[in-house]
């Protein structure tokens, strides 16, 4: 496998010979190669097919701005579509495949599109595919979708790990070319905390691709010496393979470091990539400039690339795309490619310069005032047709062509905060505008200083200004300072099939059509033709399109304007944006104090927010969840059950104004709640809608414990702090969330007191007289362990809630189980909890759904009229107090075997079944072992006056249509005798 196009020198490591495959064929390259440079060295120019016309394509560039040479890198779960061969580092065993072609890259059946290009112009699809109407979805679209896209995903889960990190610095320098390195040296030597980042795997920027001298030596020597100095500074952090993808608010930058992409796979324990959030006090953008092409007929053949790219391949990668190369340029820089390639022994067929006064050469022919008017060579350039200054034609044999249309400063990040660049007539390019992201300055070629000396000088200045450094600077290294002049020449007259956006196949002809049809603003042009919307985001094509539109519209380029530059600077793996937050780590998992005990017990768990709660506890022989849940309900109501209710929010409220404060946040009264008593509280939002309910227990004169629902714990806490800090800042009250500090268990059932008397220390009287319904107290258990006891009941049975510091929760649960054996104590989970509260008619989250009021919940009278509280005023609005307002009721099927479905709607028994006649809906449903039938809670228009009415319950989406009766929501023990026992 000879690399016939290898040259001498370069930065490749010839001691490393790397084997790789492309489209199944084996090749060899060297360390430091990219996939593109290695393929070119092996005389492979054809690397891809374009999106629409499937035209054969080779690399246009040598960098991340590449539109054509996109491959599927790797295979299996690590397959990465749309990978730029120009930046993919070569490694031993690399395997890549071309994309968007069938059956092969050389013979692509879809290339037939190219023959029909006349019909497939920009926007053609808006004008057709409409008839017959059904055909769009059944015929046209499937075909279009199959042909669309470029690379394929493997459809398997991404097997690599990604990480996220945070860095802080005084100065972030984006780009390690001559300007960036000089800025880093200046800043680093001053002691500032510096981060120098470059997307490339080597430092040096453009210097790596040129044959410039610095201090009269190869520039590489200066680069290496600088890096050695910077590495030794502990206040400087060097980051290669790191693309700064976006400039976000307040000096926060996103950067992606490709830790392992240059290896066959990440080393064990290492991430593939890292997303860095960099907090930079100041930033210098030293991102360089990108060359732009000239548009001419058939300017997209494999082998035609940017002149600077050919130089990069030759000087850095010791590879030439062909042995016979032509140059087409409108400026002096293009000639550099001819000089360098000639010196490397490559034949320069001609330098075709649009300028009549182009510089001549003794080494090769320069055609002054000439233009390329066409090319030949479908699978690879073979000839160029050139029109000379005198109008005569010449055919030039060449297998590669370097195009130089000038340079565009890489201004992108300067515009990430809606800034716009400014047009510079001298450069015929956009340069950074006036309004930059705060803290950012620009230097070097990115600022429009295209000479090496300019870059070095600028870098020093930028660092000094950014950090406010005074004093003299070290002597600047010597470097070339060639003047840069640019006469705009965007396209060759009369060209039509001349490509602007090579990936999306947008030609000069398309821009003209866009103008003809009235899509003349730069945004309309972009959207109508899709110019600049491909994976390269128009880095080498936007300006050409703009220039042509400007000409057609009779405007200057800055008048036409640019589209918005947005992050990410280059496409970024979705995996790295997610980092480790995936799979089971997507959210934290919160475990209750009794979790491990419950696990041992065989509990089935359910996610409740971020918590895992036991849903039910199956025992031997139970095969269906209903068996477990029914048993748990029956056992609790018959004897005693225990349920972990730690997850419900607990908020400690302390201070001399604690009661007054609670009086403001609850709609019912709390000012006069006696010490040692608990009261149910309903909290309204300021708009009068029920927000949350719970209890407030007055353990002491200035000490309450407030409970909330599990789901709303955070929200209620936030709300209470708002009321405290923003509305009543002088109330003497403090709040603290104690949800996780206390393990809290409900002990419910006729034997609950008897069980608790076995663990509560004898000092405490919890008989019905000593500790009546809705009492609370600080107590001790198990011989002195401090605890809290609340006599509240969610189940409707005689019940208590006992709380101990969370670290004792596991032990307490085990103790309760041991002591409760004599009562056949039954642990119950959230399902049984839910069944019992539905049987009792207690509203819960399903009923407090954010649209219901106290009135709807049957608690209208709870909203005190004698004191102000959050929400009380707006709860008076007429719309919330209508005669036909929804009221909470119970639903029972007439036939005990019928289902009740939450989400079902209530209809009049003999009335139409549609939305206009909707009477209400079911919020909660469960099978009630106590009633041996399904039951439900819900809301019904004027429900409290319709008890006993027979209605229909319909749930069309689950095929339900049954007869039901409207009953009181309190299915069992409506008088409440059991909980007061």
């Amino acid at each position: 496998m000879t690399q016939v196009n290898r040259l001498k020198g370069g930065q490749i490591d010839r001691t490393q010979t790397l084997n790789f495959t492309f489209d199944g064929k084996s090749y060899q390259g060297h360390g430091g190669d990219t996939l593109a440079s290695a393929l070119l060295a092996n005389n492979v120019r054809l690397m891809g097919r374009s999106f629409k016309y499937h035209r054969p394509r080779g690399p246009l560039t040598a960098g991340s701005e590449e539109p054509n040479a996109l491959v599927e890198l790797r295979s299996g779960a690590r397959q990465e579509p749309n990978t730029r061969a120009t930046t993919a580092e070569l490694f031993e065993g690399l395997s890549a495949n071309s994309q968007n072609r069938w059956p092969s890259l050389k013979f692509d059946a879809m290339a037939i599109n190219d023959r029909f290009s006349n019909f497939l112009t920009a926007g053609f699809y808006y004008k057709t595919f409409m008839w017959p109407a059904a055909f769009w979805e059944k015929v046209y679209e499937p075909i279009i979708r199959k042909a669309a896209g470029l690379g394929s995903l493997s459809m398997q889960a991404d097997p690599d790990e990604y990480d996220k990190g945070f860095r802080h610095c005084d100065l972030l320098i984006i780009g390690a070319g001559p300007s960036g390195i000089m800025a880093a040296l200046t800043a680093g030597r001053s002691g500032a905390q510096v981060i120098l980042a470059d997307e490339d795997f080597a430092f040096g920027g453009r210097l790596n691709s040129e044959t410039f001298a610095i201090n009269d030596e190869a520039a590489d020597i200066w680069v290496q010496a600088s890096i050695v100095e910077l590495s030794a500074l502990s206040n400087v952090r060097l980051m290669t393979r790191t693309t700064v993808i976006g400039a976000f608010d307040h000096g926060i930058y996103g950067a992606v470091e490709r830790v392992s992409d240059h290896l066959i796979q990440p080393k064990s324990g290492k991430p593939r990539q890292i997303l860095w959030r960099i907090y930079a006090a100041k930033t210098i953008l030293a991102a360089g400039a990108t060359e732009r092409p000239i548009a001419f007929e058939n300017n997209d053949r494999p082998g035609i690339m940017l002149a600077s790219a050919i130089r990069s391949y030759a000087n850095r990668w010791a590879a030439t795309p062909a042995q016979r190369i032509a140059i087409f340029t409108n400026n002096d820089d293009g000639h550099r490619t001819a000089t360098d390639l000639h010196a490397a022994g490559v034949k320069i067929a001609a330098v075709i310069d649009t300028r009549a006064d182009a510089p001549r050469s003794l080494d090769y022919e320069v055609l002054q005032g000439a233009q390329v008017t066409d090319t030949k060579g479908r699978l690879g350039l073979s000839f160029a047709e050139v029109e000379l200054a005198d109008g005569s034609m010449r055919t030039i044999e060449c297998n590669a062509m370097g195009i130089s249309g000038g340079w565009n400063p890489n201004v992108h990040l300067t515009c990430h905060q809606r800034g716009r660049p400014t047009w510079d007539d001298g450069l015929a390019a956009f340069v950074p505008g006036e309004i930059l992201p705060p803290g950012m300055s620009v230097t070097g070629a990115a600022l429009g200083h295209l000479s090496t000396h300019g870059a070095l000088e600028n870098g020093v200045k930028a660092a000094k200004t950014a950090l406010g450094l005074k004093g003299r600077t070290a002597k600047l290294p010597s470097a070339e300072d060639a003047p840069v002049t640019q006469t705009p020449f965007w396209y060759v007259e009369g060209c039509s099939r001349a490509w602007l956006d090579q990936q999306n196949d947008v030609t000069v002809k398309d821009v003209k059509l866009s103008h003809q049809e009235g899509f003349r603003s730069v945004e309309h042009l972009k959207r109508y033709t899709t110019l600049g919307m491909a994976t390269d985001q128009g880095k080498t094509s936007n300006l050409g399109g703009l220039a042509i539109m400007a000409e057609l519209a009779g405007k200057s380029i800055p008048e036409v304007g640019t589209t918005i530059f947005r992050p990410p600077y280059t496409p970024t793996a979705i995996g790295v944006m997610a980092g480790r937050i995936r799979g089971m780590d997507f959210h934290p998992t919160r475990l209750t104090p009794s979790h491990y005990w419950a696990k041992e017990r065989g509990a089935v768990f359910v996610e409740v927010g971020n918590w895992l709660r036991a849903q039910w506890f199956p025992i031997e022989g139970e095969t269906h969840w209903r068996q477990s849940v029914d048993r748990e309900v029956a056992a609790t109501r018959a004897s005693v059950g225990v349920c972990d209710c730690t997850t419900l929010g607990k908020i400690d409220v302390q201070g001399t104004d604690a009661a007054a404060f609670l009086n403001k946040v609850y709609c019912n009264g709390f000012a006069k709640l006696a010490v040692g008593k608990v009261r149910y509280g309903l909290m309204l939002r300021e708009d009068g809608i029920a927000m949350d309910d719970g209890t407030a227990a007055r353990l002491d004169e200035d000490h309450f414990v407030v409970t909330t629902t599990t789901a709303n714990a955070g929200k209620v806490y936030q709300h209470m702090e708002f009321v405290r800090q923003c509305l009543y800042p002088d109330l003497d009250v403090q709040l603290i969330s104690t949800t996780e500090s206390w393990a809290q268990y409900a002990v419910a059932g006729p034997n609950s007191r008897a069980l608790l008397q076995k663990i509560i220390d004898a000092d405490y009287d919890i008989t019905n007289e000593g500790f009546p319904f809705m009492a609370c107290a600080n107590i001790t258990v198990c011989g002195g362990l401090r605890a809290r006891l609340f006599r509240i009941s969610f189940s409707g049975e005689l019940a208590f809630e006992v709380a101990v510091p969370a670290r004792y929760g596991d032990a307490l649960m085990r103790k309760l189980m041991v002591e409760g054996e004599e009562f056949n104590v039954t642990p119950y989970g959230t399902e049984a909890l839910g069944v019992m509260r539905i049987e009792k008619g207690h509203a819960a989250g399903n009923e407090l759904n954010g649209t219901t009021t106290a009135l709807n919940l049957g608690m209208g009278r709870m909203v005190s009229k004698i004191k102000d509280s959050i929400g009380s005023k707006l709860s008076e609005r007429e719309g919330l107090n209508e005669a036909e307002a929804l009221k909470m009721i119970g639903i029972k099927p007439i036939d005990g075997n019928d289902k009740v479905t939450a989400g079902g709607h209530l209809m009049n028994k003999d009335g139409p079944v549609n939305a206009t006649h909707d009477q209400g809906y079911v919020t909660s449903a469960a099978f009630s072992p106590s009633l041996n039938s399904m039951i439900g809670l819900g809301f019904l228009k004027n429900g409290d006056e319709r008890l006993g009415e027979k209605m229909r319950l319909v749930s069309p989406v689950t095929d339900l249509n049954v007869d039901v009766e409207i009953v009181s929501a309190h299915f069992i023990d409506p008088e409440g005798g059991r909980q007061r026992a």
Partner: protein
Amino acid sequence: MIINHPLLGPRDSAEFVYLGDASLIERPDPAAETALVDFVDYAYMRENPAGSLRELWFHEAGDRSWLVVTRNTMTHEISDVQMACDVARKIGRSK
């Protein structure tokens, strides 16, 4: 974004939860004659400026204080940060 907490120094805004316009501190007098109309205005009507806005942020992942931040809604530049309880007291809110 970075919010310069008066007590804790610069913090990433991701530590906070956003509520809305700081006019929410100016809860109307429920005993006034025009109370219902006042409360509707308070709860629902907003300046929504394209420019400087005083807004409420809750430091949920930090010290749980409410802050009044003055921020430009066009540029996101933050020009002032105060403790909300101080702002509340300044406009006469007390008990």
